[in-house]
């Protein structure tokens, strides 16, 4: 299975950019194609993984329904403009800061953070397709891609038992916080 998975990206890369991979796979890759989405997912994954298994479950319970709601609203054509990405960056910076501090809040806060990121990510993932079939495929792909990414990061982080691994998680949190802060500042502070 691992070998098959390794072959898939090369096949996809070989013949086409996004157009050739279809709506479903374009949806799957969407969270990774948009840096703000990927950053928010990584920071949320680190935050929940650092909190342990119960925190991860709480986070997923908030994330998944909110993601579905957000994607559904995006699929109906709801367009909230460009204001969502700065909010995602703000959330990435905040969760990254909590990762640096190794702060473990009450579990409902993990669910709330998951819900906030899931909703914003869903709303900001409106597919370009117009027919119902491709839209549904893209949205399904996006939900699977985002959840798999979150799950992978959180699981990796939860497995960090050694001191140096926990330090590495905090350092990555600081990188994410710094990047998100800079680009958030770029959106708000750039003189026109």
């Amino acid at each position: 299975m691992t070998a098959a998975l390794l072959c898939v990206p090369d096949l996809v890369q070989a013949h086409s950019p996004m157009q050739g991979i279809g709506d479903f796979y374009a949806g799957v890759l969407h969270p990774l194609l948009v840096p703000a989405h990927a950053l928010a997912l990584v920071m949320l994954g680190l935050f929940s993984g650092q909190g342990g298994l119960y925190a991860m479950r709480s986070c997923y319970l908030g994330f998944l329904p909110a993601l579905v709601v957000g994607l559904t609203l995006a699929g109906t054509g709801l367009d909230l403009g460009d204001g969502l990405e700065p909010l995602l960056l703000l959330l990435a910076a905040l969760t990254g800061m909590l990762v640096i501090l190794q702060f473990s809040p009450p579990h409902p806060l993990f669910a709330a953070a998951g819900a906030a990121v899931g909703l914003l990510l869903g709303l900001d993932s409106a597919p370009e397709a117009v027919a119902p079939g491709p839209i549904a495929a893209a949205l399904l792909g996006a939900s699977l891609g985002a959840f798999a990414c979150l799950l992978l990061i959180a699981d990796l982080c939860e497995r960090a038992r050694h001191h140096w691994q926990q330090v590495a998680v905090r350092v990555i949190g600081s990188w994410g916080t710094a990047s998100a802060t800079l680009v958030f500042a770029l959106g708000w502070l750039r003189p026109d």
Partner: protein
Amino acid sequence: MWVYRLLWSAGLGLLLATNAQAHSAAEIGGGFVSGLLHPVLGWDHVAAMVAVGLWGAFLGNPALWLLPVVFPLVMALGGAIGIAGINIPSVEIGIALSALILGAMILLAARPPLWLAGLIVAAFAVFHGHAHGTELPTAASPLAYSLGFVIATGLLHLAGIGFGLLVRWPLGRVAVRAGGAVIAIAGALFLGSAV
């Protein structure tokens, strides 16, 4: 259990599949690579970043990881100041001074309290961040660019930490202090050309 393994494999496949992002990858990849190269191509940045890691390793835990965590956070604030168009006078002098002072700290085996070490590193991070931040608005993908230069900064810290861990041995301690001397001399040369 098999569901768990399947999801894990799917997630791993997703990460591997990033090669498929051909067209928007040009923009994202371009921004990331230019961000990644920005600190590496400036010797003044390289010297100061390595010095932060080196000094952290010299001071031991928790400075070993705290200084490389403080640096990017404060650097981001410096970058925000640069983005806002607020001018910090003599940024290049500040960057050169960071190599000179941090190198001297290592050379002299200075062991200030943790808060003071953090404050010194944070003060210099503002100058480095300002220099990066002023270039951010022109980047193709600002987030990818900022991720690139923050990661490059972290890797330079890591290089310094790796070298700095030699302090466990007497000869290694001499080598690390000699490394500090080289950085301080380089800082003095940067300062000479910046003034």
